[in-house]
């Protein structure tokens, strides 16, 4: 064999082998030094990273405080709520995951849009709510499929629940997710948790900080899929439960009031004439606040918005109604305090009063005849008050109106309290830019025209007259710091005169609200005043032919039925203001509601233990 025929000679292969071997040894050297770098030099850093991987701090949300009535009945509580959240950073393909979830939990486009927006708006590690208020079947189906859905976590949380549905909806308000504006105002990290709820309206909003509690943190061990494999609770880091809030309301009395309203709309306020505590604050019709917590459907929303009785409108605090004849006590007191009017002096009512070229009418066909002040109120004679108002003038009436609480928005701790209108010449000049006319005074003297009052104000007015000494201020939240009540600053004799006249309305035969059996409670009398709030102009032709009867008018054009009253007459405890929208004459619908409510309130008075005992001195 020649040299050329040979294959690669062994010497070359050996040399090359050694070369490769040297190279290999070098690479092993690099690998070993890399290991040394990772496992010795950087070991501590990686140990920390490994623990970071392993441990996570989860914000733990506190239970929201309950809201209760004065006797401890639950008005707002927390109920177990099954929901599902998703942690985007642990999800490989969000869209695919959402699609798979929607096979189990139906998700409409609106929800999907909301979820996508939430994902964009939050850090990738924040759990995003997919859906809540799941039923047990859906929830267990979800749990069954969860191994195939990394990053999707079924949770049992707490949801707000209002056991009385709508009965207290306007006062309690409801809870909802914090919107970007809330988050901007309040840097509490809980607000950024998509499952957290804050008070949006009513007491829920007003006492939110009290009810909310404070967040805790929970150390959890998580695996690579973000699933919690172990919890390491530390009692010091636990969430602090929100405090309960007590209201002055009497749930039973409010429930009774709502029953009395039946299908009607309107507002009813019952106030303790000694303390100003509100026992009832009812706006009818109501709406189920639970719907707002779980997310209102478009159909629900439409139904609420299209209802002509406006369920969402808080009529008892915000609704401005002409007080009508219930305003006459104000004119009476202004007249007595002015010293310009002798209450014994009679005015002759022929149903008509000419002022310039206008004719003002009394409601009673044919007129009342001769009326002194007491009879004027008892019979609600408009002519008497027209004449009186002309003499004393609007300023004095407005001043007395303000003393009795008209035109004031009371701070009862929640929003939505409206001031109504207590007009005077300066108001009209400022507001409408033209001068006050005598016709305005006459309209105001019977609580029509520019005068507007809320049912709460009517109750306060009645309460101040009943109290007689202090300017009563309504309050709702138990434990709230209340300022000392100011003096009413009205001559007690004049108050007594008006009280007597209001008694005659209810308890003397011929009074506009007289019932033979009165309150139905032996020995307890009621004082009050009817009002029939006109919502339409009555044409001359109609007045000449025949006033259309209540039932003949479309609902929207019927008179408001108004009543204010208090009881017992001798030692007043509760005052009530009541407006039944388009309920007709005040002597009928509103008067009967007030009569029944006052009777029930007196029955229930003192039934429960003292408020102070129940709250253990809790403050807000």
């Amino acid at each position, binding site marked *: 064999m020649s*040299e*050329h*025929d*040979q*294959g*690669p*000679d*062994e010497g*070359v*292969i*050996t040399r*090359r*082998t050694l070369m*490769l*071997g040297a190279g*290999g040894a070098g*690479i*092993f050297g*690099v*690998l*070993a030094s*890399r*290991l*040394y770098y*990772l*496992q*010795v030099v*950087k*070991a501590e*850093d*990686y*140990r920390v*990273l*490994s*623990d970071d*991987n*392993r441990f996570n701090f989860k914000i733990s949300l506190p239970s929201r405080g309950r809201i209760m009535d004065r006797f401890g009945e639950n008005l707002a509580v927390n109920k177990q709520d099954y929901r599902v959240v998703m942690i985007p*950073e642990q999800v490989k393909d969000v869209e695919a995951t959402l699609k798979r979830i929607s096979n189990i939990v139906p998700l409409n486009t609106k929800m999907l849009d909301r979820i996508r927006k939430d994902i964009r708006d939050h850090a990738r590690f924040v759990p995003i709510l997919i859906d809540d208020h799941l039923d047990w079947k859906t929830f267990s189906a979800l749990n069954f499929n969860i191994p195939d859905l990394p990053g999707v976590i079924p949770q049992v949380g707490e949801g707000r629940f209002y056991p009385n549905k709508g009965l207290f909806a306007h006062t309690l308000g409801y809870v909802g997710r914090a919107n970007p504006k809330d988050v901007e105002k309040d840097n509490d990290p809980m607000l950024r948790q998509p499952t957290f709820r804050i008070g949006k309206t009513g007491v829920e909003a007003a006492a939110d900080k009290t009810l909310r509690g404070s967040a805790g943190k929970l150390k959890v*061990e*998580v*695996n*690579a*899929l973000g699933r919690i*494999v172990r919890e390491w609770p530390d009692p010091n880091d636990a969430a602090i439960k929100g405090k309960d809030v007590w209201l002055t309301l009497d749930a039973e009395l409010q429930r009774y009031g709502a029953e009395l309203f039946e299908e009607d709309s309107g507002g009813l306020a019952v106030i303790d004439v000694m303390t100003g505590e509100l026992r009832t604050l009812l706006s009818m019709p109501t709406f189920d606040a639970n719907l707002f917590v779980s997310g209102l459907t478009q159909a629900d929303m439409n139904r609420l918005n299209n209802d002509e009785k406006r369920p969402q409108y808080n009529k008892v605090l915000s609704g401005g109604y002409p007080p009508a004849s219930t305003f006459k006590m104000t004119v009476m007191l202004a007249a007595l305090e002015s010293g310009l009017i002798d209450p014994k002096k009679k005015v002759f009512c022929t149903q008509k009063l000419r002022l310039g070229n206008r004719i003002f009418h009394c409601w009673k066909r044919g007129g009342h005849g001769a009326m002194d002040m007491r009879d004027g109120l008892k019979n609600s004679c408009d002519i008497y008050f027209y004449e009186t108002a002309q003499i004393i003038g609007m300023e004095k009436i407005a001043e007395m109106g303000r003393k009795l609480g008209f035109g004031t928005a009371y701070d009862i701790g929640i929003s939505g309290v409206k001031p109504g209108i207590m007009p005077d010449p300066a108001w009209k000049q400022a507001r409408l830019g033209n001068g006050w006319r005598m016709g305005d005074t006459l309209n105001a003297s019977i609580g029509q025209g520019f005068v507007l009052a809320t049912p709460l104000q009517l109750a306060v007015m009645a309460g101040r007259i009943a109290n007689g000494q202090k300017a009563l201020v309504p309050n709702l939240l138990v434990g709230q710091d209340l300022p000392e009540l100011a003096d009413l600053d009205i001559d007690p004799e004049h108050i007594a005169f008006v009280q007597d006249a209001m008694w005659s309305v209810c308890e003397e035969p011929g009074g506009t609200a007289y019932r033979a059996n009165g309150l139905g409670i032996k020995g307890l009398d009621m004082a009050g005043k009817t009002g029939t709030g006109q919502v339409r102009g009555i044409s001359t032709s109609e007045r000449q032919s025949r006033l259309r009867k209540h039932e003949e008018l479309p609902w929207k054009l019927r008179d408001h039925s108004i009543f204010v009253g208090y009881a017992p007459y001798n030692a007043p405890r509760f005052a009530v203001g009541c407006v039944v929208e388009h309920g007709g004459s005040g002597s009928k619908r509103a008067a009967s509601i007030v009569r029944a409510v006052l009777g029930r309130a007196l029955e229930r008075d003192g039934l429960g233990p003292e408020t102070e005992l129940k709250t253990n001195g809790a403050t807000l």
Partner: protein
Amino acid sequence: MMNPLSSSAGITAKLYEVNWLLVALVVLVGLVGVLMIFAATDGVWSSGAQQHLIRLIVASGLMLGVAMTDVKVWYALAYPAYFGALVLLIAVDVMGVSVNGSQRWLDLQVMRIQPSEVMKLAIVLAMARYYHDLPNWRVSRLSGLLGAAILILLPMALVLRQPDLGTTLLLAATGVGIIFLAGVNWRVIGGAALAGAIALPLFFRFGLKEYQRSRILTFLDPSRDPTGASYHITQSKIALGSGGFSGKGFMNGTQRQLAYVPENRTDFIFTVIGEEFGLLGSLLTIGLYILVISLCVWLSMQCKHVFSRLLVLGLTTTFTLYIFINLGMVMGLAPVVGVPLPLISYGGTVVLTVMTGFGLILSAHLHRQNELPRSQF
């Protein structure tokens, strides 16, 4: 020097001559694998460790069988095996079974085989025979180089189509390694290095799938995609690093327990060793591998003819490259390319091929004195 062993030598005498040190080392590495798979699967014997042990036993039998067969037989089978593997690779392309988006498996009803694994052995056999037969003066000539290039490029192209970047690179490196060992002259090596420098970017742009490109880019810049492709690398480094010098203890790795390192039963099994046994355990494992490799190189030098030498060295190169790529990947020094840690990672075909490879090495060594005539070109 020993007498050449004839194929008719007594079985017992022949068995005695097998290099049992290598057998013992290989089996030891395999047992490390059983232990670590056991840990990686949370101590569930049946989810990997048991199968690995069984495969190890079966493959050991196969290894000895291959070792006892005369190297002449392997020489004769070199080209048929190569063409057979090529046919299997084409078959996989046409009718293969897809696993995780890669078409690498061929379902033969009885068993599923991975032709690219078979090719890893076949290419070494074929190239060893090629250089055994090739006259020395033609090694650096165009004709000699062309033959070798065709032997390498055909299977590379087919494996890349599957797509399996790791194996493609492994085949290429093994082939180039054998050409280098065969004694190609430095001028050719220089020229090839230059051509490679030009071809590499083109290959990167046109020869790779999107996910393969992204893996390489992520390797170069891990912050590109912290939860995607580089997640493997980051978590793997955390697992190794947090093991420290002496490790967290057997079955105590938190990264492992909480499943932060994906594929830790297969490609990333070294993270379990690093996390639970620390630097000590890692270096011991690497040391074991170095012993195996060194022993193989030592055995190669005792072989008389070119075929045996190149066969042993080629197979050792493949084995070593497996280790380099896998460890480099796990330590964040190389891109994630799905190459297992030989004998330790869970996976049937790899155990079989690697053990068969060691069988060939043992056979070459056992029959090192035998005459091996050269075929005419």
